[in-house]
């Protein structure tokens, strides 16, 4: 889908400008992606980690780093970029949690105390289910994965989704998400 000149600059364009050193372009990208990912991260960061990690800082730092270093060409599609950034934040959280664990080594005594170690999402649907979900998500085709992430996790409306996934209509976007969710559920049963 072509971006008409009157529409706001595409992330792809901004990304190229940002990587060329355009500070304003980077700010625009951050403004575009930060709020949703912050909110997303707040559900994914272990409750106990909040004592030593500032969610906002983590997300912001990760985005800046990721935006500076990714190969722009692979992320022409808005949805692909958003899914990539979401994954970057997730990796960063996993890394932080692992490091925190190293600081206070888990031993026999601590294994019975999962309290602070799980995120609100894990507390809600269970650690094991979140992991199964993540693994299945990674096995999906990129467009299916993006559809799930954007709609289910990041709350894109269908119009935004249509743009990000390069779908011709809102209906087409809705249908793409529906199918992606169905495939994801089926994929999740594959390891039960």
């Amino acid at each position, binding site marked *: 889908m072509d971006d008409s000149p009157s529409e706001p600059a595409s992330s792809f364009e901004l990304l190229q400008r940002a990587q060329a050193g355009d500070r304003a372009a980077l700010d625009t990208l951050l403004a575009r992606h930060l709020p949703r990912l912050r909110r997303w991260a707040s559900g994914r960061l272990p409750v106990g980690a909040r004592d030593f990690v500032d969610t906002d800082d983590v997300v912001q730092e990760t985005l800046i780093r990721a935006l500076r270093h990714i190969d722009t060409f692979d992320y022409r599609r808005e949805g692909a970029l958003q899914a990539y950034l979401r994954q970057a934040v997730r990796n960063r959280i996993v890394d932080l949690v692992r490091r925190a664990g190293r600081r206070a080594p888990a031993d026999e005594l601590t294994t019975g105390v999962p309290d602070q170690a799980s995120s*609100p999402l894990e507390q809600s649907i269970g650690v094991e289910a979140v992991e199964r979900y993540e693994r299945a998500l990674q096995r999906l085709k990129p467009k299916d994965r993006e559809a799930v992430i954007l709609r289910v996790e990041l709350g894109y409306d269908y119009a935004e989704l249509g743009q990000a996934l390069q779908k011709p209509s809102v209906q087409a976007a809705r249908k793409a998400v529906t199918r992606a969710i169905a495939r994801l559920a089926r994929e999740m049963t594959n390891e039960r």
Partner: protein
Amino acid sequence: MNDDDPQILELAEAISDDQPIDWAFAERSAPDPARQAVIRELSLIARLAHVCRQPDAVISSEPDGEQTDVGSTTVEGGLATWAHLRLLERVGAGGFGYVFRSWDTRLGREVALKLLRPSLASAREATTIVREGGMLARVRHPNVVTVYGAETIDGEVGIWMEFVRGRTLAQLVAEDGVLGAEEGALIGITLCRATAAVHNAGVVHRDIKPQNVMREEGGRIVLMDFGLGRDIANAPHSRSWNLAGTPLYLAPELLAGGGPSVASDIYSLGVLLYFLVTGTYPVLGKGLEEVRAAHQQGTRRLLHDVRANLPPPFVGAVERALSGDPSQRFKTCGAMESALSLVIGAEARASLAPASSDVETRSTSRTERFRPHRHILAATTLVALLVSVWALGTGTVRRWLGRGDVQPPRVLMVLPFVNQSQDPDQQHLTDGVADILTADLAGISGLRIISWTTSLRYRHTKKRVSEIASELPVDAVIEGSVQRSGDRLRVTARLIHAKSDSLLWASTYERDAADLFALQGEIAAAIAGAIRVTLTGPEQSRLTNRHVTRPAAQDAYLQGRRHLYSFNIEGVRRARDLFELAVKEDPRYALAHASLARCYLALQDFGVMTPEDARLRATTAAATALAIDDALPEAHTAVAEVRFKLDWNWLGAEQSYLAALGLNPGSSLVRSPYSRFLSALGRTREALEQARLAAESDPLSAEMRTSIGVILYYQRRHNEAVSEYLKALELNASFSPARVGLGRAYAAAGQYDEAVHQLRLAIEQSGNAWNVIAVLAGIHAEAGVRPEAEKLLQQMLAQAAKPEPHIAPQDVAYVYAALGRLDEAFDWLGKAIEHRSTRILWLKVDPRVDSLRGDPRFTTLLRSLGLSP
């Protein structure tokens, strides 16, 4: 089933559209297990989507039922932000104003913002509210919502606080029905503690009601929403506030125009508890006027008349809180808490009266000063066990733990209890209760208990249980208090879930002081029952068959125990005197005999008792303890120590250590000496294992860390030893054995300057102890600074000629060995063996005698110690 399966696609579409789905129905209507499995995963995705869309699904400050302006979606004043808070969604509304889920843009966190309706607050009131908000922000209590701040901006008063998810107690009752007295009392106890914290901050809550108390998903009870502004009750807007709720909780003196006070909060607590167990209120009325009139006419419905099957202590506590005359109510929340804590066991006991009748023969006939009900005192261990079972039967504990929390606690810690006696000298008794409870729980095989020496570090802590849990690997914490009045004791104990800071179990016991030990066992068994640990036969009998001693003997014993923990010469001497007194008062007191043996051994170690004297006395004391009670782990440990350190009976010692461990597997007080024994034998790997286990249950003990350091030093892992000693010193910088060890390890690693520095500090800390000076001399010699070493050696030799203080011959030998004067070294080692000096027992592993090992005389020495080369 394929990608086009219409049922699956329909459900997926509903998830995407955020439509409600009846998952149970969907799963039932699926034709085969494969599709059912997919539907189950879809329901997980739906929940995940729900969490992502609405990270705070259930939110605090839900509306008070009937209210004004409900359903309006526009925000009054069209606010999108307020101060540094971005308003996300309105989650509550009432006569006071609105509550918004908001985003604190400064700190980047979600908060609940309560905005007061502008017309409600005059400028003066606004100032008061903001000032109070500041005071509330200082209240730090696990069961009080954390207030972050309060401000007035353009005449609008806002107060922002922690965002809490869960259900209010009003919802709980509406959805699950009224509560039992026990659960009501547990909530009441928690709320009394929470309200007391508010009162201690100099604030009156003013608006305690079930709508303002949340139960989080994890079970934590949180006291929320403070009444804002003292004039609200009499404000002209009173017509608009929720008459179905608030006035029913207002104390009569408030309705009569009086000001809010501690007493009016206590009244509200009373109404809240009344409501929790009945679903109705003591004074009814359709509006402020009717309620006021009902109070004036004295038409209060007594709790007993509304629900007859409640235990009298519960009814008594609630009715007292509801007294029309404020001076007749509890003076403080603490007093109300105490009264409520009597309920926990009482209801169970009352309901178990037939079951307990056959064991009442053991009841006491002594004075009954505290006794509210005769049958409470009749309770015995069996009853206490049944209490827990009963509590589980009614679901109290299960419900309390909440859905997500199926694992009952297994790692516990007993915090030092609070001495509530008038007499501060009763601290030893208070400590003794918690200390012995720790030991009792450690003897239960299903539990891991953090040791008493670690607990002691939390004596004056103001930390929340959840904060302690973040420092130590504990699931739950036991806290309590002891009150002594003459020969009567009142002990309260509470089990607090570490994760949620919520109360899992609580009980109050009233006994004769002489029954203390029986009571300890009873409490331990009750706690085990409450968290579903099954006791083995021997465990149960150890907890129930307690030696009943005379109060004077028990007193002396408990005081002695406290001195023993000091680990210094004076403390141990004092402990010895007290234990001797205890066995004089009660010659059948096995625990006191066993502890006495420990004292003699320690005094011998310190060099203030000759080995001969110590051997005679310690052997007698340990043997007596064992003869009286061969199921007492302490007796076996005492025998083991005597066999090891004084008799050099290695085989016998190990048997006794193992017997003690069999009886009390969780005790670091057994593992730690056993570990030292193993290292002397040269079995350093096993020793290290035991020492690490001991340190796990005693994570804050410098002594345990030091033991690990010593073993690593014996294994020649000097750098690791250094790091263990440093950890020990972090825990207790004045623990001189760790500093001596650190110096030795530095020296062994070739860092002589650092070693000498540490030793100088240690000499100062130990008060110029000769054994420490000897280590410094040895280090000088190893470092090649011979004149210094020789100088110290001459001082030691001069001292050795004198009778006191005693210089251990092996200390002299180590200096000679370091100086390369091997003949003298062997001479002095020979003397050490002759004197049966304890510290020579580690000869086999001690790096300081490495220069002697090739010599045949060394083999002879080891053989004479009973050790193989």
